[in-house]
């Protein structure tokens, strides 16, 4: 039955949704879930939500380098431990 097939696709797509947005599925499953999402108006919003959520989470990544003073302290400690570089 087409409806039953569709529901099965929805269930497996939702089970694999986070693995899909994390690109952790096999290439075949990635393609299958992607195909389902493009065709299913019920599942697509879930994927869009997941992607927006992960994007927002990634935005929390601090954009900073190790401060010079910290770098200098680390190098000094390493030299004390025997590092022979200048």
């Amino acid at each position, binding site marked *: 039955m087409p409806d039953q097939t569709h529901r099965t696709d929805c269930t497996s797509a*939702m*089970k*694999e*949704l*986070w*693995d899909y947005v*994390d690109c*952790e599925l096999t290439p075949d499953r990635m393609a299958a879930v992607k195909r389902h999402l493009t065709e299913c108006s*019920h599942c697509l*919003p*879930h994927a869009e*939500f*997941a992607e*927006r*959520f*992960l994007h*927002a*989470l*990634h*935005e*929390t*990544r*601090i954009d*900073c*380098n*190790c*401060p010079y003073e*910290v*770098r200098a*302290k*680390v190098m000094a*400690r*390493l030299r004390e*431990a*025997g*590092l*022979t*570089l200048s």
Partner: protein
Amino acid sequence: MDENQARPGAPDPSREGEGARVRRDAEFARDALPYMDDVYRFAYSLTRNTADAEDLVQETFLRAYKSWHTFQPGSDARRWLFTICRNAFLRSREKLRHEVDVEDGSAETIAAVQSQSEMRRDGSDEILSRVDLAPALTRALDELPEPFRSTVILVDVEDQSYDSASEVLGVPVGTVRSRLFRGRRQLQDKLREYARDAGFASAGTSAREHDDA
């Protein structure tokens, strides 16, 4: 690989000659030191405190230097440093590493989808596209219990694969996935509260009343 686990055939640093030591130091400088910015950022993500992050970076590189003879040439030095960094962080907090049982991943993903449905129905998902969520999510991340926080930071903030996070955390991939789902779900719950406080969610909307699943 754990930093204390010597690779087979690795030279004993205490018996190596001057030439070997100079070569080892040069390799350490070439393969490990360039990741100081990455380790600092990861340390800061874990501690959310500049003084603690500084201590953690120093501890990480000292341990890495002392264990450099155990590093497998050609493997991922950044991942190895992250492993040392997180282990040092846990030691510094005197927190025992407790493993989270791997639960039914399918049930967790379905639960996550239901939670998302509720957010979409009450309108709280609107906050994702209309507000800079970084400060709120950072606070929510800080409140996540270990080990969920480390897992979410590694995968969602530092872009590590499940395999890589599994190595850094020293747990199976299934556990990484389980922690990730639960951590994300807790973050979504916090986000939903934040959305309600910010007036995005429609009060009194019951997800069950409008279940379209």
